[in-house]
């Protein structure tokens, strides 16, 4: 065998698997047909966060007059913004390459395709490996009638490249990607509308948190239409005429946009992989089913990340990569995370981990909740960001923490505490008894825990 482990794909899951396997003394190769870092580093997590930060700074400059800071004319040099964003991506992907070298992971360049259960063709060479990890990721789902040209009609990749700020933009899909780009473009000056087919945006998030989140998005100028779908697109010169239908009333309207973002989901990517040659089963939706050790139906072949199922999140892929590598190295690892956090990196952010109130009730828990609004947080006031709250879902009686839902600045970072609390099987009392620094946003987590017991100090307890 040429390698102990051959990882197919160098995204978050793939490079985590490769590096951990190498740390454990295995001879590892990682095949990548595109750029190392995968979707997350190149056209996903990282570049969108860069654009979100820049947009927020622009928006913040407009609010600085509240405390007496005024500027001349604030201008955004779009080409410079693109360069800065691309520089961050380059630095991070270069970092992954360096980590491969430092860990002696062989980087194979080319499209990988199974020849048999232990042989993979990469480009025009074939390699054998005792264990193989499939980490081929996902790609944007298509919407019939909306052909993506990455110029005027874009998917999440095309939306990252901005040459001029569109006056009117339509985001089709009220999920995480749709809202993050809606927020970027709104802050850059576009008039943005988000349409969602389902009755609610950000499926999977807590209903109260979504209500608070959409309230703030609307306040910032984003138009949101739920139970709405886009039927067809017509290009008239530089204008995009989109027929939109309310699926409840059946009412149809045609609206004009300069740019349309198609963000209706992502689909697993196995094209060209030829998993059949290895006997690996793929579901009719394109996913590769795995057990808690990330094993496919072929015991020495593993699958991780987006291709192995939802939720399609980088940190889920990373964890699964570590599990697969450790199992291959003979360790008894398994994907046993209590909860996988979810985050929308808008401003305010929407972040959650664990069960929503509805999910907890569905599962038969007697539920208690505690909510602490940021309008009562001193730190939030000093940050000019009082939209949002922390909501805690707790089991009545045992006081066991079931879920934490946060809308507010740095919600993504506050989530770390909540995730640890869930893993440690903490109770609301444990959190309430933990001294949180003052003044910080993290205190809102403490106060939400206190609110569960109707003992919050900075709000009236009802």
């Amino acid at each position, binding site marked *: 065998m040429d390698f102990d482990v051959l990882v197919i794909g160098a995204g978050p899951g793939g490079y985590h698997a490769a590096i951990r396997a190498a740390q454990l003394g295995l001879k590892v190769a990682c095949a990548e047909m595109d750029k190392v870092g995968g979707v997350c580093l190149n056209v996903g997590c990282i570049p969108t966060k860069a654009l979100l930060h820049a947009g927020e700074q622009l928006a913040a400059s407009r609010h600085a007059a509240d405390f007496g800071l005024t500027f001349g004319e604030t201008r955004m040099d779009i080409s410079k913004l693109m360069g800065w964003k691309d520089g961050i991506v380059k630095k991070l992907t270069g970092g992954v390459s360096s980590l491969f070298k430092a860990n002696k992971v062989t980087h194979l360049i080319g499209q990988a395709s199974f020849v048999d259960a232990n042989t993979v063709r990469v480009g025009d060479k074939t390699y054998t490996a005792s264990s193989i990890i499939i980490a081929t990721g996902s790609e944007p789902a298509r919407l019939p009638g909306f052909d993506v040209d990455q110029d005027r009609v874009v998917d999440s990749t095309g939306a990252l490249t901005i040459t001029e700020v569109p006056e009117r933009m339509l985001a089709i899909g009220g999920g995480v990607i749709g809202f993050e780009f809606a927020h970027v473009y709104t802050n850059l000056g576009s008039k943005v509308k988000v349409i969602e087919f389902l009755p609610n945006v950000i499926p999977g998030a807590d209903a109260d948190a979504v209500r608070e989140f959409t309230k703030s998005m609307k306040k910032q100028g984003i138009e949101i239409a739920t139970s709405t779908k886009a039927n067809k697109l017509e290009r008239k010169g530089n204008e995009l005429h989109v027929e939109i239908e309310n699926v409840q009333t059946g009412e149809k309207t045609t609206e004009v946009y300069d740019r349309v973002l198609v963000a209706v989901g992502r689909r697993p990517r196995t094209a060209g992989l030829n998993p059949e040659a290895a006997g690996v089963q793929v579901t009719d939706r394109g996913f590769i089913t795995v057990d808690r050790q990330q094993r496919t139906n072929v015991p020495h072949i593993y699958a991780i990340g987006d291709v192995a199922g939802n939720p399609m999140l980088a940190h889920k892929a990373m964890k699964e990569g570590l599990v697969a590598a450790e199992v291959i190295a003979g*360790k*008894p690892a398994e994907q*046993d995370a209590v909860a996988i956090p979810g985050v929308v990196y808008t401003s305010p952010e929407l972040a959650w981990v664990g069960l929503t109130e509805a999910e907890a009730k569905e599962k038969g*828990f007697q539920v208690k909740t505690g909510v602490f609004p940021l309008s009562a947080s001193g730190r939030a006031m000093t940050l000019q960001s009082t939209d949002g709250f922390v909501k805690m879902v707790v089991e009545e009686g045992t006081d*066991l923490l079931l879920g934490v839902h946060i809308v507010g600045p740095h919600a993504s970072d506050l989530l770390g505490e909540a995730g640890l609390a869930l*893993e440690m*099987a903490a109770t609301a009392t444990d959190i309430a008894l933990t001294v949180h620094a003052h003044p910080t946003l993290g205190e809102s987590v403490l106060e939400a825990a206190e609110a569960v017991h109707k003992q919050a100090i900075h709000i009236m307890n009802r």
Partner: protein
Amino acid sequence: RTDGRVLAVPAARQLARELGLDITQVPGSGPNGRVRVLDVHQHAAAQQQP
């Protein structure tokens, strides 16, 4: 009820796997019966004594 969730800290879950023990069979001494690393060690020792 815990919805099948084992109230055990991550390090205890990992240790139980390494020792070949079923974490759901380890009595927990922490709050709400939470299983700690020490509980796993004690359970393992008790299993070895016939």
